[in-house]
Every structure is written in structure tokens, then in C-alpha cells.
């Protein structure tokens, strides 16, 4: 009897099924578990409505952030809530559909009257709803954002770096350690996603006196083979996979078919960094794929990371994604909760919550390389320093610890940090 190819079960693993067993077990006891007030008593007061929008449909699943935020809020509610008031977390899926994204955004912000949005992760929703958030004065603490709109609006602050800093981080490493001279940035031709990130990649390469090329593909494109061949025809020495995990893995498969491992240096921003990815990639890529990660390794020993594992284990659902975006959603929810706990529970409304979020400055976590902050600014990008890991023997090993990037894109961000007294 023929066994199921490993890849099938592994891909199912990576892309949404049970990931829990893949995460290294941490001493279970609830010693690591810490949520909100830690009273151990369920909150019973009037619920505080908080929203979250994720995008989960082909070609990518960005629900890790809202999954983890939901788990954390459940834990907070079981531990005294926000000074006695539970958080009612309402999550919507935009299914990568701009029209639906607008509808669910309006539903949450106008009809449900949420005080803020937390854990958002989507490729379309922010582009559609940025204006709505600004008009309605509601803040969004996103977690799994991938388009420029997440980083260039006053009312949106995302805990994850997004493709731009993570991609540049990967390139910086490739230039310094692997000797890259000409990189191809392969991305989706989605507004403000692939084009935005790949443009800045090319500018970065140019600023180093090197060469960059963009290869943008239609997200519905059927033929990954010709995308790979395009990179081959371009004559590059490095390939940067600016794609969600699924398509990135597809492209690596094509490259494997063509024996392309040694023809290029392979680097990638965060999305491909998932526990269980080893089962899909197999030995072929071991020692040949470098990934920039936006938050700490998912098996690291910091207290927040251990808390993340404990919370998702106890309050998460079967099928929750436990990836970088999940860490990001967890820490966003934690920062949000901490900010709310400082407010008078009777006076929690949209205005006071937005103000409290803007007051967040210089909070730290072992999940992030630098301090997190929001402040009152026309754009936000608190997280831009990352780590580099190498895919090896089915897992990842750190090859460079926290390092920041140098790109003119960050100029306004650096000015903000200076004004707020934040030192990265």
C-alpha cells in the first residue's frame, strides 16, 4: 500500500490544521500563564466590544493574529477582565474580497460600535477600511498586515513588520553574509503589497550599489514554473520570496523540480517561518533557505513567548495557527489589554480607548527586538528590527540575532522615535 506522501499531511499541518504538537512543549503548569489582572475570577460586567478582521481564503490564511488575540482575551475574561468588564471580541473574515472587507469593516465599526480593532491580519481589509477608521476615530492594532496602508495611516499600528522591513532585513543579511549582487523580488501584484515592497527592495539594493528586479505575479496565476523561469532569465543570483507561505512553498517546489537550490541564494521574509514547514520542504532545502523573522523564535525562552504558548494551549482552538502572526496577535492583545487596564472601567469608550492606545510608549517584550510604541503620528511602524534564521534539518536555527535595517523608508519613523524618546 502506498503511503500518503509526507508533503500532504505536512502541508495540511502548516496551513491550518493542528499545529500544537509541533510547538515544543513548555513545562505545562500554568506558571507561564499570565493574563490581565490574573485574578482567576471570570469578569461579569458589561462587555467591551472589540473587533478583528482577518483574511482567510486562497491564496493565503492570515488568521493567526485574530486566533491568538481571541485566546488571550478569553484568558483575560477568565481573569478579572478589564477591571471586571469582559472583552467581547468579534472576528470577521474578509475572504480576500475587497467588497466584503468594506462590509464587515462597516459592520464592526458602525453597527457594532467596537472601541478598537485588534489582531487584524489581511491583505485587503486595511486598504479598504483605512479611511473608515480615520473618519470614525477608531484605532486598529493589527498583527498580520502585509500592505503599505497598515504602516502609513494615523489610525493603524501593526505589531508585525510587514514585507518591507522583513524583506530588507533578509536582503541586508544576503548582501552581507551571502554576497548577493542582484536580487529578484517575487511578489503578488496586489495593490500596495508586492509592488510596494519590491519597489523598496530595489531601492535598497540600489542604495548599496547593487541591482534589484521585481517579478510581480497575478495571485491567481496558475503557472509558478514560468515565474521561476522568469527569475532564471533575469540572471539574478538571489531570490527573495515576498509571498504568503503557500505560494512561497509552491515556488520552492518548482525550484526543487528544476534543481534550483544551488543556482540562487534563497532568502525570504517571515511568512514561511512556521512550525511544521520542515515536513513540507524536506531535506532538500536544509541549509539553503534563510528567513528573516519579525518576532522572536516560536520556541524561545522569554516570558512573553512562554505565556503565548501557555495561553494558546489553554484558550486556543483546534486548528488555530501558531505562527509569527499568532505571536504578533498575542502581543498586540496584551499591549491593548494593558492600556485598557489603566482606564476607569466606567469610562471606556472609543475616544478614551483611542487615546489610551496612542499613549502606549516604550513597552517591551521578549517577542520584539525593540520597544513598542504608538504615539500620535500620521504613520506607525514600531517593529522594524528582526532576526535571521536558517532552515536546517526540518527546523530553524538562528544565524543572526536582533538587527535593525537602514532604509530611507524609515526616516519619518526615526523622527517619531526621537520625539517620543524611544530608542531602538
Amino acid at each position, binding site marked *: 500500500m502506498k503511503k500518503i506522501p509526507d508533503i500532504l499531511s505536512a502541508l495540511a499541518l502548516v496551513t491550518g490544521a493542528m499545529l500544537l504538537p509541533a510547538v515544543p512543549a513548555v513545562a505545562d503548569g500554568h506558571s507561564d500563564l499570565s493574563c490581565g489582572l490574573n485574578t482567576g475570577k471570570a469578569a461579569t460586567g458589561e462587555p467591551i466590544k472589540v473587533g478583528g478582521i482577518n483574511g482567510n481564503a*486562497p491564496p493565503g490564511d492570515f488568521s493567526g493574529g485574530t486566533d491568538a488575540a481571541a485566546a488571550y482575551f478569553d484568558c483575560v475574561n477568565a481573569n478579572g477582565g478589564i477591571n471586571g468588564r469582559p472583552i467581547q471580541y468579534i472576528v470577521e473574515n474578509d475572504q480576500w474580497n475587497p467588497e466584503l472587507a468594506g462590509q464587515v469593516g462597516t459592520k464592526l465599526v458602525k453597527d457594532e460600535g467596537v472601541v478598537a480593532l485588534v489582531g487584524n491580519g489581511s491583505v485587503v481589509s486595511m486598504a479598504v477600511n483605512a479611511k473608515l477608521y480615520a473618519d470614525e476615530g477608531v484605532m486598529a492594532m493589527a498583527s498580520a498586515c502585509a500592505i503599505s496602508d497598515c504602516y502609513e495611516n494615523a489610525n493603524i499600528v501593526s505589531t508585525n513588520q510587514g514585507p518591507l522591513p522583513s524583506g530588507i532585513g533578509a536582503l541586508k543579511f544576503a548582501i552581507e553574509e551571502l554576497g548577493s549582487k542582484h536580487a529578484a523580488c517575487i511578489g503578488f*501584484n496586489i495593490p500596495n503589497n508586492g509592488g510596494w515592497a519590491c519597489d523598496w527592495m530595489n531601492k535598497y539594493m540600489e542604495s548599496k550599489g547593487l541591482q534589484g528586479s521585481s517579478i510581480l505575479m497575478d495571485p491567481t496565476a496558475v503557472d509558478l514554473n514560468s515565474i521561476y523561469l522568469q527569475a532564471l*532569465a533575469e540572471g539574478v543570483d538571489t531570490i527573495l520570496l515576498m509571498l504568503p507561505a503557500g505560494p512561497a512553498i509552491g515556488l520552492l517546489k518548482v525550484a526543487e523540480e528544476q534543481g534550483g537550490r544551488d543556482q540562487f541564494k534563497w532568502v525570504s521574509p517571515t511568512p514561511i517561518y512556521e512550525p511544521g514547514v520542515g515536513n513540507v520542504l524536506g531535506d532538500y532545502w536544509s541549509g539553503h533557505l534563510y528567513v528573516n523573522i519579525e518576532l522572536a523564535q516560536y520556541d524561545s525562552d522569554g516570558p512573553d513567548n512562554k505565556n503565548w504558548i501557555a495561553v494558546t494551549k489553554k484558550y486556543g482552538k483546534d486548528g488555530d495557527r501558531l505562527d509569527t502572526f499568532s505571536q504578533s496577535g498575542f502581543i498586540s492583545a496584551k499591549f491593548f489589554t494593558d492600556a485598557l487596564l489603566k482606564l476607569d472601567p466606567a469610562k471606556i469608550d472609543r475616544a478614551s480607548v483611542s487615546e489610551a492606545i496612542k499613549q502606549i510608549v516604550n513597552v517591551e517584550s521578549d517577542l520584539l527586538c525593540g520597544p513598542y510604541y504608538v504615539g500620535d503620528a500620521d504613520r506607525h511602524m514600531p517593529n522594524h528590527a528582526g532576526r535571521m534564521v536558517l532552515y536546517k534539518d526540518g527546523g530553524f536555527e538562528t544565524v543572526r540575532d536582533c538587527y535593525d535595517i537602514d532604509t530611507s523608508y524609515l526616516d519619518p519613523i526615526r523622527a517619531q522615535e526621537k520625539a517620543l524618546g524611544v530608542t531602538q
Partner: protein
Amino acid sequence: MLKIYGLFLVSGLAVGSLYALGGIGLVILHRSTGVLNFAYGAIAAASAMFCWQLVTWEFPGPVAWCLTIVAGVFLSVLYGRLIAPGLAWREPAVKAVATIGYTLILLGLIGFIWDDSPRKLELPTDKIGVWILGVRVTVTRLIALASSIVVVIGMIRFLERTRIGLNMRALADNRDHAALLGIPVVKVETMAWTISGALAGFTGLLFGDLVRLDPTVITFMVIPATAAAICGRLESLPLTLIGGLAIGVLEAMLTLYKPLAPLRTMTPFIVAGLVIFWMQRGQRLTFVRDR
């Protein structure tokens, strides 16, 4: 440089053979029954998903693949026996539109049964490859190309040499006369639905393996496959094969010309559009024949 052209030629033939296979399945059915089956892609998608399910249930590979083709035949004949006869005497366009209904039903059911999570279909032949013109070509891709050629040759011989093939040709030429002559119309048509369904299942299997196991993508591959069929005027199998392969190669080659590279997937539609314009040349305005 020559190596690069070789690369794209080989890659293009691989994609083109998928278009061609789809087109051939459409043409075989259309010739005998007058139905242009838009549900062809949905049948392929359903078969491919069914195959994935069987593999997940640890069915042995060969059994799963055979059942995939059986699934294609079942879904095709289901429509062919249940719905198609009721529309037999309607205009060709109406028959085609009805298959859109079947497409929607299948697509909805697939989406309901299998959620959106990315999946992968693999064949053992993916791991074996040969080097042609500097490109590693997996045996699966060779199977796609070879089978499209074999099907065309086989179908032509079948139509020429066998009784049922003769009947199919008769039906294609004139349905009314064929019926008057006592040709068992239902039997012959069922045969056509069977062959077309088997091809749909096979195409779905290859498409899910070579391109992507995404039901929506496979369902709408019927559009470029239709383009290939148009190249054969919905009648000629060899022309459909050539059309499909030519579209695939042209599409791949356009990758090399940067300004047009992002538009290269338009190739099937533009080629089909040009073929239609060329076909209708010289037709007079009056006495339009509804074909």
C-alpha cells in the same frame, strides 16, 4: 540564450498540453452532442478534490487515480443523462448556458465539502525527471504532453474505425438525420459524455498536480481550454491540440519580452478572438446560421 528559449519552449509545451487536453475533452463532446460543456472545468476540479480525499484516506495511488477518472465519468454522464436530453433540441448557446448551471452547482458543492485550506496533489512521476534543453522535465509533464497527442490520434482512429465512432460522426453532421436513420442517439451521446468525463477527470488530476489544487482555479481553466477548442473550431481535434500547444508556448515565450510579460496570460483569449474573427470572414450579414 538558446538555452533560455529552450527552457521556455519546454515549459510552454507543458502548460499548452494542459490547455490542449481540456480543449480536446470539450471538442469530443461538442462534436457528438452539440453541447459546449462549461462544467468541464468543474468536473475536473471535483475529480481532483476527490482524488485528494482518497489519497488522504490512504487509498493506494493507482486505485485513487482510477477512481478519479471514474468520478469524472460519473459527473459527466450524470449531466449527460439527466439534464442534457431535456435540452437536446434547443439552440447550442442555450445548451452551453445550461452547463453553467451545472458548473455553479458543482463549484458550490466542492467549496462546501472541502474548505479553503491549501492542498497538494502529488504523483510519483513528479520525482522522476529528464533533462531536455537544459530544463528538468518531470515525467508527469511528459505524460500530459504525450497523453494529449495519444488521445487525439486515438480518437481519430476510434471515430474512423469503429461503429460507434461512425455513429458519433453521423450525429455530429446532422442530428435529425442520424436519428431518422435509426442511430441509437442516447447510447452514442452517453459514450461521448463518458469519454469527455474521463478526460475531465484525467485533466483535473494533472492540473491539480502540475499547477495548483485549487477548485476555483481548475474550474475556470475551462476558459483557456475553450480558447484551445475555438482554435479547432470546436470540431477539429488536431487543430485543438496544435492551438493549445501554440497558446502555451506563446504564453511562455512572452515572459522574455518584458513589456508584455505581465499580460502574457491574455494569450489564450487573444488567440481565440483572432481565430473567431478569421472564421467569420466573408460571412454575409443575412441568413446568419446559428451554429
